[in-house]
């Protein structure tokens, strides 16, 4: 049609013009051919197949109403970073194309792989969920530590929460459609154009293998118009979100276990294992799908085996290492809600649980530990890092957060584990402030920090008002410090501020 390298100018429905460089070998996705703008700041993605009126209406809404709703209001800029949302539509004769922002540079490998050429490759999530990829095929400078994956999951849950709040479902969430960067803790949800609006725009794909919800797999054989046939929707997004979180944090698939449902037909076996018969590999009531390290050894290539541990060792790294906030959500997602979509945790619940879990994380005492962080379990007799086994043998203040309820203090259900350098923020001390995308810059500044000095722990007040030692009824003025000891209670500011009750572990 054009000569390779020719710069083509097109007019979009918004009236704006865009340019792209023609090539007869465009990057191609499942449904679209992708051409780059001359400065590579955006791409023009043309659908290979003709789009029907309904699809075109969906795309118009995607770049119009829905986009305006997501990004138009206050704080819209925050979301620009979380999605790769198309911003204009091109109708070039019969060809329909979307103008989509190019992926930011942090989503391309800088170092790639030590063994083969992966530089500039896209950071699809799958590189980071398979331990052989994460710990053998990727350069160590690409993979980040364990805490980064909590950040990533939190941002992902936040992104899904925002879409669901707007009444939109992504319909094809998978590690292919989520780019992540564990160095800068960034997430970009991509391939938004398949979004589903209940009662208005039906899904046009079933999703990606491994992320499709059991009810969708199980009813795939029914005719499209059958009322029992299940299609991607908000609830299936919630299944995919739970799978993604489990995979990013634990480097294994929650449903991919040892059970074989059909010895003769691999396809049917897979459909049953992810669909009708799906069982969580760590389900304590039904262990048919649970595997042992020996089974992993038999089922993986010998050269990869050592990279798979401890991730594929369900005894050494059970989902309970994710701590008390995530534990019940994992159970709801993969036990109670696996075949009962209404019971699946909502995106905001994941977001909250991840935020609270990060307050329980402490750095491993072993400077060479690969994961560097773990969730502190104060119920264990001898707390240790689940990855390298190094005991945590120094004293550790646990802060229990209370808030004023009437005239009495009530436990807020939140705890903070203190390590050297822990900081408290506005959302810890003020019950009215939530840690979310609406935080102002002032609210992002720490209000207190903790230091370990000559064998003692101190809290330093970095806020702009006095804190109060409730036992002695003495103020802790700004920029001064207070010694932490078992039982100490400190109000973290004025009358309405939260109070911490200090509990010393490993005294």
């Amino acid at each position, binding site marked *: 049609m054009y000569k390779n390298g020719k710069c083509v100018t097109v007019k979009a429905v918004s009236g704006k013009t865009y340019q792209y460089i023609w090539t007869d*070998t465009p990057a191609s996705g499942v449904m679209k051919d992708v051409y780059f703008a001359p400065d590579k700041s955006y791409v023009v993605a043309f659908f290979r197949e003709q789009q029907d009126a309904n699809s075109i209406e969906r795309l118009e809404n995607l770049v119009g109403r829905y986009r305006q709703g997501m990004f138009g209001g206050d704080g819209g800029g925050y979301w620009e970073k979380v999605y790769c949302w198309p911003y204009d539509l091109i109708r070039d004769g019969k060809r329909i194309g979307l103008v989509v922002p190019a992926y930011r540079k942090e989503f391309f490998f800088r170092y790639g792989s030590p063994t083969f050429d*992966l530089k500039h490759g896209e950071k699809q999530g799958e590189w980071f969920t398979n331990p*052989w990829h994460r710990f053998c095929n990727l350069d160590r400078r690409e993979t980040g530590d364990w805490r980064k994956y909590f950040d990533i999951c939190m941002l992902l849950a936040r992104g899904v929460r925002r879409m669901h709040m707007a009444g939109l479902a992504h319909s094809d969430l998978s590690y292919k459609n989520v780019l992540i960067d564990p160095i800068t803790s960034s997430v970009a949800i991509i391939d938004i154009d398949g979004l589903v609006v209940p009662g208005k725009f039906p899904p046009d794909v079933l999703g990606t293998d491994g992320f499709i919800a059991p009810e969708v797999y199980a009813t795939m054989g029914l005719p499209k118009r059958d009322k029992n046939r299940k299609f991607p929707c908000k609830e299936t997004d919630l299944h995919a979100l739970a799978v993604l979180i489990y995979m990013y944090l634990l480097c294994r698939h929650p449903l991919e276990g040892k059970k*074989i449902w059909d010895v003769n*037909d*691999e396809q049917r076996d897979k459909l049953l294992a992810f669909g009708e018969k799906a069982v969580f590999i760590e389900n304590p009531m039904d262990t048919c799908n649970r595997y042992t390290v020996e089974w992993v050894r038999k089922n993986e290539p010998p050269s990869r085996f050592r990279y798979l541990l401890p991730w594929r060792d369900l005894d050494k790294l059970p989902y309970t290492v994710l701590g008390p906030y995530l534990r019940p959500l994992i159970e709801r997602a993969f036990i109670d809600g696996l075949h009962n979509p209404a019971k699946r945790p909502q995106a905001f619940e994941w977001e909250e649980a991840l935020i609270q879990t990060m307050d329980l994380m402490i750095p491993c005492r072993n400077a060479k530990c690969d994961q560097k962080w773990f969730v502190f379990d104060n119920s264990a007799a001898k707390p240790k890092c689940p990855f390298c086994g190094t005991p945590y043998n120094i004293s550790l203040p646990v802060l229990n957060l209370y808030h004023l309820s009437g005239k009495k203090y009530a436990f807020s259900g939140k705890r903070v584990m203190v390590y050297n350098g822990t900081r408290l923020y506005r959302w810890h001390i003020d019950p009215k402030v939530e840690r979310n995308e609406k935080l102002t810059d002032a609210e992002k500044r720490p209000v207190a920090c903790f230091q370990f000095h000559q064998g003692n722990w101190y809290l330093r007040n970095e806020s702009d008002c006095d804190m109060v030692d409730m036992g002695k009824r003495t103020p802790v003025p700004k920029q001064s410090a207070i010694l932490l000891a078992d039982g100490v209670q400190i109000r973290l500011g004025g009358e309405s501020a939260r109070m911490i009750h200090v509990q010393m572990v490993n005294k």
Partner: protein
Amino acid sequence: MRRLPVYMLVDVSGSMSGEPIESVKSGLQMLVDALRKEPRALETAYLSVITFNSRAQQIVPLTDLASFQLPEITASGCTALGEALKLLCDCRKKEIIKTTTEVKGDWKPMVFILTDGIPTDDDDVLSEGISEFHAEKWGAAVSCAAGPDADKDFLDKVTPECVVELATADKSRLSAFFKWVTASIATTSKGINEQGDGATGLGQLPPPPPELTIV
């Protein structure tokens, strides 16, 4: 992990020498380099190369993409495609992991056959080759008739309704073929068509580029 085995059967007879064989080599290397950038393909795809001229030979046993290395290939001699099909079936019997209650076996292997000529085996070897090949189930089996002298009728007996054709066996057309094979492997490794029936026709693979005509 279930592996996705991929067998490439490549004609290295005398007529392939020069540009065609060089294009095959660079095509295979490009295929490996591109699939290594696909995390799922890198995890699951295993590649074997069987060449045939006067004899058939498995020059690379089923190997994962991370350690795959392409040996030197030269072109000379005749076109023992029948023997190659028999060797393919032997290799499959030796190399493919069967599913048991304790071990998840391999996906059905994909096979791509590339030839520019007419098979030169004896008739009985040819018919044995075809019947042994048809006795096995393959994930996707596609033949490519590269250039006007390829025996399309024979290929259609091997892989009915799954024959593609290149007008000539030149660099750009062979490169387009290998790109399409790459995309086919990547797509298959990622998962399964909507029907979930593991169908084997061309319809399950990405659309072929304009250089490839479906016969």
